[in-house]
């Protein structure tokens, strides 16, 4: 017999130590990947102090939120094999929960808490309902049903305009401590004013980190393993004694709750929520792309996918601006890299990244470097 090369890692190896405990023994398993992840963590942790201006900190906050959102979707897609298009609905519920509560009940921590709890409860109920009703049908039918549900949610948000602000969305005030005008320290720290904006950023950052680590733990638990088994062969998993519908529904609920938290963070950061911000189908597609670029079924993929994509989205136009003025004078080319054609390149990016990273970036890195 040909000796079959063992897998690049030993499944049974037990890692000790603090890091392993925090990362639920799911270590990056690639030196480059570890370095990249560490770099992302460090940059996100220090953005307000290292970069000036409102664009970098805004981008960083968005990355944090999307890491949670994408990771929560990966739990569904990569680990459970469920293709749902209704994930933005939960993102939206989180956003609207905060927005409506803060707008209606006034800008206090209490109303934020009420909004968040109500949103989580609603998300959980909806996720259970969708799960129990439709996780039994064929996978592709489920996807299409969620597509319809998502569009129904958008219709609903538009129809309930007295509550949601309709297409216009809601702008609202944050609790005192998170407003730009609030000063925690009278003196700037490392040249940066320690104001409400900074606090808001760190709120987003730490909650995201916590939720991410929790998700990481869940996918590496016996429960997470069952989800993977169900993804591979649900019929067999059921025969082994695992109640497939219950596990899938549980996965949907967990994922929905995490997405709701992401939505709430997004709204808190933007002090605004509207249908295009959290409910739109294009966000759904962005999430899909981030999961796939990063690497499905690897929570770290969410980090890399989200970071890369949000950066590209924020700076692609800027880059093209530079490119097209550099190339001015040439025929046609400057036209194609005119900033208004940035979507063209985003589209190309969709296609190229799926080809360039069939197993996602994490998959690629893990294969390349032990």
């Amino acid at each position, binding site marked *: 017999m040909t000796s*079959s090369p063992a897998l690049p890692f030993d499944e*049974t190896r037990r890692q000790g130590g603090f890091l392993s405990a925090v990362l639920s023994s799911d270590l990056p398993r690639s030196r480059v990947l570890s370095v990249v992840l560490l770099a992302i963590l460090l940059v996100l942790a220090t953005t307000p102090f290292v970069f000036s201006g409102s664009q970098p900190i805004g981008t960083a906050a968005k990355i944090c939120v999307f890491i949670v959102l994408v990771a929560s979707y990966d739990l569904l897609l990569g680990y459970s094999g469920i293709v749902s298009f209704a994930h933005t609905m939960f993102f939206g519920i989180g956003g609207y929960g905060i927005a409506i509560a803060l707008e209606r009940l006034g800008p206090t921590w209490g109303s934020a808490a009420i909004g968040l709890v109500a949103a989580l409860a609603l998300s959980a109920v909806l996720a259970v309902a969708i799960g129990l009703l439709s996780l039994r049908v064929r996978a592709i039918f489920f996807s299409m049903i969620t597509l319809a549900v998502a569009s129904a949610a958008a219709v609903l948000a538009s129809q309930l305009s007295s509550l949601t602000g309709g297409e216009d969305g809601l702008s609202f005030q944050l609790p005192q401590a998170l407003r730009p005008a609030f000063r925690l320290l009278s003196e700037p720290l490392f040249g940066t004013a320690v104001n409400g904006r900074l606090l808001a950023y760190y709120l987003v950052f730490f909650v995201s980190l916590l939720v991410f680590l929790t998700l990481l733990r869940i996918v*590496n*638990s*016996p429960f997470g*393993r069952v989800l993977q088994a169900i993804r591979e*062969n649900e019929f067999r998993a059921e025969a*082994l004694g695992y109640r497939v519908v219950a596990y899938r529904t549980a996965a949907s609920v967990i994922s929905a709750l995490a997405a709701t938290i992401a939505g709430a963070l997004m709204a808190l950061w933007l002090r605004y929520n509207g249908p295009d911000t959290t409910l739109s189908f294009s966000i759904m597609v962005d999430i899909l792309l981030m999961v796939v670029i990063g690497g499905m079924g690897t929570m770290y993929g969410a980090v890399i996918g989200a970071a890369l994509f949000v950066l590209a989205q924020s700076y692609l136009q800027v880059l093209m601006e530079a490119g097209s003025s550099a190339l001015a004078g040439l025929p046609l080319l400057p036209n194609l890299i005119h900033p208004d054609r940035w979507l063209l390149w985003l589209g190309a990016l969709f296609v190229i990244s799926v080809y360039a990273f069939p197993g996602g970036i994490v998959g690629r890195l893990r294969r390349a470097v032990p």
Partner: protein
Amino acid sequence: MTFTSTTTAPALETRGLTIRFGGHVAVNDVSCRFTPGTLTAIVGPNGAGKTTYFNLISGQLKASAGQVLVEGEDVTGLPPSARTRRGLGRAFQLTNLFPQLTALENVRLAVQSRADAGWSLFKVWNSRRDLIEKAESILERVRLADKRHIAPKALSHGDQRKLEVALLIAMEPKVFMFDEPTAGMSVDEVPTVLELIHDIKQRGDSTVLLVEHKMDVVRSLSDRIIVLHNGTLVADGEPAEVIASPVVQEAYLGVEVARD
């Protein structure tokens, strides 16, 4: 060993079990009891309803009529997973595994189900050393230990069959249902599996149902044979007696094939 019907509830019983697909009755009013410590072989021509009978017992199919009882408790309305948790274990005729997970992980999942550890969300999976060790020992027993990190999709057909058996053993059910466990297994591997089945039977508290077309296997292992033909139970009894019966000789073995 002799077959005696006990007064206590049998490990598994079917009462009037029937399923129709449109006009076709694939399993027709089959009533049967299976007692611990006995290995019952189920034989019959292709399409007789053997696999369908298993599917009805383990819950993959819903019966049109009749009941399935496990240790006296009616499980007819329960989904497969619930029946598994009540002690029914099943290996499949057409290999049915987790194709991309390693052989070890395949078995570990079965062990984990047995240990009822699926719902722990906040524990790390490999902190359960005991589960992993048990899975490894089972792979050892089916002679797949050296392939434990290979996924089924890259295993040869015979090795997949062995893994299928390993999963059933790992579940440690009260009732073992083997559906042609040795089909496609090479001649030198068959004895390993037969030995495993023999061991299970030997323990005395397990009930074994075995569908098998290899008559020598049936003869050497079974305490009792039941014969299905067109979905109906047509013979039930001592192996030698049943094999000699005309229905088996004609419909199943084909008169001339009954050599050896």
